């Protein structure tokens, strides 16, 4: 298993797209901290990167990589290795290399420019988001044999969580504004990993506003340590569940 991870890891790290991704992340983070006089605005830029760019690149790159290495996977299957092991090591290799790219690109400038709980929080959440979207890519690539379809599903997943989901939430908020829906809203955020990540960072970034009446209900849940643990567990579940579904499918799939 270790050897398969090693092969994949080295293969991906040599990949030009991952290299460019790292460089772009680094350029964005460094420049956003250098251009603004207060670090809060730099953090905002990185927040947008985490919520927008990181999921897109993770999900797209992983899907394409999986389709491109289908022959390699078939070759591995002909060896006396368990299917489970192959799929898991693919996942570990891909997600660790993407996390590595994120850490080098955005993690280092964050640690240097914002060495506080908020910076640390953003790094952890960025890594989690990366892993989650790699897992979602595994799911989308196992769903169909057709490469174009698979990439389409991956883009749709990203589009849904990055844009459409918030649109639906906004719509519900205004349609149901006459009802006490705050708790329902807190529950609803569990359905989108990007929202979970965003609110966790918001609790640190806009602490004064979130302490007010508008944020009170969210503060009561997300601001407490149990809320923190629960939302991190939810984020982990968002990585684990799609991967296990894809693993189950891979085990039974006729390749």
């Amino acid at each position, binding site marked *: 298993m270790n050897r398969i991870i090693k092969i994949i890891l080295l293969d991906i790290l040599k990949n030009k797209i991952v290299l460019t991704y790292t460089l772009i992340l680094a350029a964005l983070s460094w420049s956003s901290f250098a251009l603004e006089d*207060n670090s*809060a*605005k730099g953090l*905002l830029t990185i*927040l*947008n990167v985490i*919520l*927008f760019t990181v999921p897109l690149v993770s999900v797209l790159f992983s899907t394409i990589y999986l389709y491109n290495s289908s022959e390699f996977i078939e070759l591995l299957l002909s060896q006396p290795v368990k299917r489970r092991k192959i799929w898991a090591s693919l996942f570990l290799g891909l997600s660790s290399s993407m996390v590595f790219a994120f850490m080098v690109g955005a993690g280092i400038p964050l640690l240097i420019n914002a060495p506080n709980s908020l910076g640390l929080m953003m790094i952890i959440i960025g890594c989690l988001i990366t892993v989650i979207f790699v897992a979602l890519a595994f799911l989308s690539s196992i769903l169909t044999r057709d490469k174009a379809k698979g990439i389409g599903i991956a883009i749709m997943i990203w589009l849904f969580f*990055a*844009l459409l989901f*918030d*649109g639906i*939430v*906004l719509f519900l*908020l*205004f349609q149901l*504004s006459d009802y006490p*829906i*705050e708790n329902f*809203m*807190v529950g609803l*955020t569990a359905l989108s990993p990007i*929202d979970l990540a*965003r*609110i966790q*960072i*918001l609790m640190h*970034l*806009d*602490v*004064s*506003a*979130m*302490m*007010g*009446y*508008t*944020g*009170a*209900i*969210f503060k009561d849940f997300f601001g407490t340590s149990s809320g923190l643990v629960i939302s991190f567990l939810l984020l982990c579940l968002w990585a684990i569940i799609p991967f296990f579904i894809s693993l189950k499918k891979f085990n039974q799939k006729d390749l």
Partner: protein
Amino acid sequence: MRKLIYILLFFCLISNAKTITVGRLYPVKTIKQAIALANDGDIIIVTQGVYKEENIIINKKIKFLGKNFPVLDGQNKAEVLSVAADSVVIKGFKIINSGHAALDDPCGIKVYDRNFVVIENNILDNNFFGIYLQNCKNAVVKNNTIKAYGKQEQLIGNGIHCWKSDNLQIIGNKISGHRDGIYFEFVTQSVIWRNISSYNIRYGLHFMFSNDDSYITNVFKGNGAGVAVMFTKNVKMFNNYFEENWGDSAYGLLLKEISDSYIFNNRFARNTSGIYMEGTSRIKVEKNIFEANGWGMKIQASCMENEIVNNNFLGNTFDISTNGSLVLNTFNSNYWDKYEGYDLNKDGFGDVPYHPLSLFSVLTENNPSSMILFRSFMITLLDKSEKVLPSITPDNFIDNKPLMKSLPL
């Protein structure tokens, strides 16, 4: 000749003033006994020790001085010290454990209808009300440390409570743990200077129907609801710090029905709302810093003819919010860190006006739970398009000359 007699008489009076020392080792053991013995103009010096005499009434013009902070203990029964004479000086006591009662408001020190009273350098601990000035003129409350351990608004009184008074000086006091740190009702021509009012249950400073007052260089920090100034005109607020007033309806500074006032060079940092204005008119807000607040200013549509000039807005979640579309206030020459315009003629002012009101601040005003979507990509898009083409936010809500660089304040 007549003058000479007056002068002689004066010296006679002075030489008549005697000093009574109270203490375990002195002939006079109790304070009440000392007051009974004293005449107008005498000095009573109380030496170190614990005096468990509740309801001490000073009804003569005396100087009442403590040596090494003697403790006056009210034993949670009644008022500790009552002043019922003019020109009394109370200095250097530690006054603890007044009674708690809702009907007659027992205090650490209470002054009834008197003038020229000085209360200085005392420590008040665990009293229902700290210092209570009722219908007083020309009183000075200076350098006292007032502390209480209130848990609920209804079960604790105010630190310094002033009612229907005139020409007061409240200087250099430290107040914490009371209901309101400093409370002013019908108090005129007074000054509140260099006080620190922190972690009180309700307001750091509560101001009602008190015209022509100023408060200068005070610190209001971590109070349950910040500072409230209501139903008043001609108030001057200079150089104060309003910090970390967080919560449901907490404001750095709450202005309600205020007119003709001047807010200058204050700092509002890390409050849920920096300033909340309702029904205020003709106020000038100048050279203040609004930093890292949830809302820099909330200006309700009932405000008019207010001028917001030359302020710095730095790192607030929302700079401004309002609840209507009517704009009767002017914004000019402020620095907004969210301003994205340019300055081609290099005069230091941005060439495009700034809309301090974001779409999302209007949305949250209408529907508070939409805060959950803040900083989502979707919302950022909507906000950006609203900035270009205002449709929901009032298009005349603008700063015509936004500064390009923050003011050095």
